[in-house]
């Protein structure tokens, strides 16, 4: 510690100096904060102010900087000192702008500012400058699993950007579903006619690209390692080839929902097919009249949309696959283009044609394709064809239509491999020695795509309905396995055009991942973060909570059954730190100590002061920005709260709560992102785990003789700036009602 030099810089600009006594802050930083240097500047983020700090770092060997000015989210470019550890006391957004105006509030305002300076000094003393993970791999090749439209596009995009690519395709030829289509839905103006798929040209381009290595007729037998150093075993016939890559794009696509599961709509009948079956008939016809399997030329055809999709009975797919309306329109055109007299009916409930599909729809109407809004109730054979019974939803009557051929628009079922929710109980039973479970495990493993040797299972966790994604809207392509990105219909149902866009996005994500990994930095959402988790293994009790709770499956077990962190897979959320019951996990600049010391540094008024103290642990992704915006909009909240930002509510260790209550805080508020199925947590499971852990804290409170209301949890979105002030004020009122904590004055 001899080499550490701590310095505090206090800004009196933006009106801070007018309302807050800077002299007192200086004294506190010096005496209580034990800062070697304390300097005040009237405009700290100016060139001159920043120079003052830079000079001290260069000439005075300052290693730890505490800046008492605005929020840590403001002026990050000015206050960018990558060579020192830094903490920020939020005097502007956190005090000046949120404490009520007027002399009557001078005292509490000053106390709040004093405490934030104490906290920032305490924090910086426990911090170390993050140096980046030294044990990182530097491999920048990208593995693409799946050689369909998405996979080939990903491979080409990454290769054209200058990265070597390995592409693995299970079939003997590249092309995937795209190769099985006669034409594709138009993707260029005027969006009126089916277009050539272009799959053969794309496959030729991929095969001849100097940066792309193609393995066809191959599967991934094992994936080990982490971003920057994945070791892949590729099974080709009986051989195993090993490749090393830095990141993976999984573009394994979909299978068509099995029409045999739709007997009520004629699944299994001779003259009923699915869209894939019709493509095969169209390829066989090669532009001439389309014939049925029995050789009869089709003179009338009915397309039944949403067959086994958007089903609310729980029997079939509950979702819309997005592409099937446009696909049926395209297929109806196959008939109309060959012979305009063929009667083609598209029976839909809601015609959904995303993108430029509306033009395509109009073009089909113009060609005379009949669109009937109806719900098919049954298909039975009739004469030489079928009769489709349906409810006409416009005319509100039950009726039927005859056709030579019925095409069922079934949906996309993602090929995402093993469902980990089902996998883990089987593995537990198998580990327990159950023979049937062992067999089942081997059976399940057969459908695995990546065969990850991760502790949490062989494939990616699935999001909704078996799709391999982690959030459809906020972070597309980001899965819950760092360095592995999903593209195309394996991620969410989509058409070919969307899949190519997806593939490009995922290729870019993979490139970011290999670059970040090669520098020992974190990937999304703390992209560029150099800190990484370390554990004092001598204190570890091998309870396995960190390995189980890590939302990203980063932590494996080593031979001695201690946690093995695989830092490149880590997103730096700190969920492991929050989980650890013996508190051995920490980051260089974020630890049980950096937050714990802040909690303890606050000056605690006595029981009779009528000044409660409430600790707020606010998620830095949404809740803390919301609090900052409360300040920006000059919405007033109680000056009795002390806010500490945390990386994620998942990183909150219960020791902080017990420490705070022991220290005499009257209440603890935790603010994190929305949890549950439509979660908004940036680390997927963090806020959910935090809520779960806090639901167990009641016992601790009872032991301390405290009311359960002393700890509350709120879901706060980034836009909740007004609501968050209301939460605080309501809670302060509630605490005043309950009364001061009896724990004050014991330490």
């Amino acid at each position, binding site marked *: 510690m001899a080499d550490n030099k701590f310095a505090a810089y206090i800004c009196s600009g933006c009106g801070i100096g007018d309302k807050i006594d800077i002299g007192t802050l200086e004294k506190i930083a010096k005496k209580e904060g034990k800062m070697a240097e304390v300097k005040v500047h009237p405009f700290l983020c100016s060139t001159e102010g920043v120079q003052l700090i830079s000079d001290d770092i260069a000439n005075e060997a300052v290693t730890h900087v505490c800046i008492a000015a605005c929020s840590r989210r403001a002026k990050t470019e000015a206050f960018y000192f990558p060579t020192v550890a830094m903490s920020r006391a939020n005097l502007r957004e956190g005090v000046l702008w949120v404490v009520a105006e007027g002399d009557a509030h001078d005292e509490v305002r000053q106390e709040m500012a004093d405490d934030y300076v104490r906290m920032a000094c305490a924090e910086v003393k426990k911090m170390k400058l993050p140096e980046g993970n030294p044990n990182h791999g530097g491999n920048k090749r990208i593995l693409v699993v799946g050689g369909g439209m998405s996979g080939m596009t990903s491979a080409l995009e990454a290769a054209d950007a200058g990265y070597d690519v390995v592409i693995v395709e299970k079939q003997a030829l590249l092309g995937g579903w795209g190769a099985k289509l006669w034409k594709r839905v138009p993707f260029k103006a005027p969006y009126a006619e089916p277009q050539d798929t272009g799959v053969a040209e794309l496959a030729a381009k991929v095969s001849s690209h100097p940066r792309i290595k193609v393995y066809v007729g191959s599967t991934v037998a094992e994936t080990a390692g982490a971003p920057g150093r994945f070791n892949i075993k590729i099974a080709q016939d009986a051989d195993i080839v090993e490749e090393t890559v830095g990141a993976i794009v999984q573009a394994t696509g979909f299978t068509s929902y099995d029409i045999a599961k739709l007997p009520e709509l004629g699944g299994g009948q001779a003259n009923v097919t699915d869209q894939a079956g019709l493509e095969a008939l169209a390829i066989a016809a090669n532009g001439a009249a389309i014939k049925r399997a029995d050789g009869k030329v089709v003179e009338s055809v009915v397309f039944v949309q949403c067959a086994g999709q958007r089903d609310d009975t729980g029997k079939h797919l509950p979702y819309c696959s997005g592409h099937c309306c446009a696909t049926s329109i395209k297929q109806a055109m196959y008939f109309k283009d060959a012979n305009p007299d063929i009667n083609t009916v598209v029976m839909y409930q809601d015609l959904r044609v995303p993108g430029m599909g509306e033009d395509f729809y109009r073009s089909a*109407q113009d060609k005379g394709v*009949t*669109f009937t809004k109806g719900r098919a109730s049954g298909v039975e054979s009739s004469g030489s064809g079928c009769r489709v019974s349906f409810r006409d939803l*416009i*005319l509100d009557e039950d*009726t039927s239509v005859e056709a030579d051929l019925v095409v069922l628009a079934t949906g996309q079922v993602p090929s995402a491999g093993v469902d980990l929710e089902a996998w883990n109980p089987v593995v537990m039973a198998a580990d327990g020695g159950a023979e049937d479970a062992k067999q089942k495990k081997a059976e399940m493993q057969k459908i695995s795509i990546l065969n990850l040797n991760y502790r949490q299972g062989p494939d990616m966790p699935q999001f909704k309905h078996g799709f391999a994604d982690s959030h459809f809207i906020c972070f597309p392509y980001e899965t819950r396995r760092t360095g592995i990105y999903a593209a195309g219909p394996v991620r969410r149902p989509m058409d070919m055009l969307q899949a190519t866009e997806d593939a490009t996005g995922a290729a870019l994500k993979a490139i970011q991942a290999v670059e970040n990994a090669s520098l020992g930095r974190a990937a999304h959402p703390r992209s560029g973060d150099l800190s990484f988790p370390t554990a004092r293994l001598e204190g570890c009790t091998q309870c396995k909570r960190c390995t189980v709770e890590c939302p990203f499956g980063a932590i494996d077990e080593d031979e001695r059954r201690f946690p093995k962190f695989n830092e490149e897979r880590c997103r730096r959320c700190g969920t492991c730190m929050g989980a650890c019951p013996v508190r051995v996990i920490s980051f260089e600049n974020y630890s049980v100590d950096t937050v714990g010391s802040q909690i303890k540094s606050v000056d605690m008024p006595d029981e009779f002061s009528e000044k409660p103290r409430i600790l707020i642990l606010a998620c830095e992704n949404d809740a803390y920005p919301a609090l900052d915006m409360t300040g920006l909009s000059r919405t007033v909240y109680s000056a009795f709260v002390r806010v500490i930002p945390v990386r994620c509510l998942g990183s909150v260790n219960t020791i902080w709560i017990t420490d705070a209550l022991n220290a005499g805080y009257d209440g603890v508020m935790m603010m994190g992102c929305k949890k549950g199925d439509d979660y908004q947590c940036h680390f997927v499971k963090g806020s959910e785990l935090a809520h779960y852990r806090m639901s167990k804290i009641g016992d601790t409170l009872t032991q301390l003789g405290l009311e359960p209301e002393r700890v509350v949890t709120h879901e706060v979105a980034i836009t909740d700036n007004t609501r968050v002030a209301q939460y605080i004020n309501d809670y302060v009122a509630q605490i005043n009602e309950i009364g001061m904590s009896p724990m004050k004055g014991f330490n």
Partner: protein
Amino acid sequence: MSNQNQQAVARYHNNFLREVEERVEDGDWVKMCMQCGVCAGSCPLGSAWEHTPQKIFMMIRAGKRDEVLKSDAMWMCTSCYNCIVRCPRKLPITHIMHGLANYAHRLDMAPKGQPTRVIAKLFWDNLVKTGRVNELKFSLAMYFKDGFVQGIKNAMAMQSAGLSLVKAKRLNPMEIIGGHKCKDSSGIKKMIARAREIEDRKKGFTS
């Protein structure tokens, strides 16, 4: 079944959509309807219609020929043009309604005594005689359409309005005898006959 109706049935079998496309004014637009229902929601008389335009388009596609042509729905259209303005697919809905009404009238399938149909017929007959509408004769024809006694009652009820119009020189009682005409009323008759001939040929009523 009228002769023309029999011919139409024979010609189009059951393909009513094609019949409409070929024989109804702007009928080729019907297939472009996307069933959004904005026309039905926009029609100020929507609740008085037996079938809204949206439904009529669907019925045409479903081949419900008799139900459409015998309906009085399209006769309810007041030509406010709300539906045309609002249709996202730019269908000339008002024109199609008039076209359907006209076609139904032509095949003599339109409801007998439907007031709009009656007034339209009186107006047309009145107009083609001289090339001008004789307002006095047209009003009287309207009054007496339901019989002599009802005609007298109607005339008595409208007495003060009629007298006011005469006083204001907006109505000339002498028009009852002959009335004034266009300069070339026989030319107008010829023009209308020629137009009819062209239309019949286009729409396949004559070969």
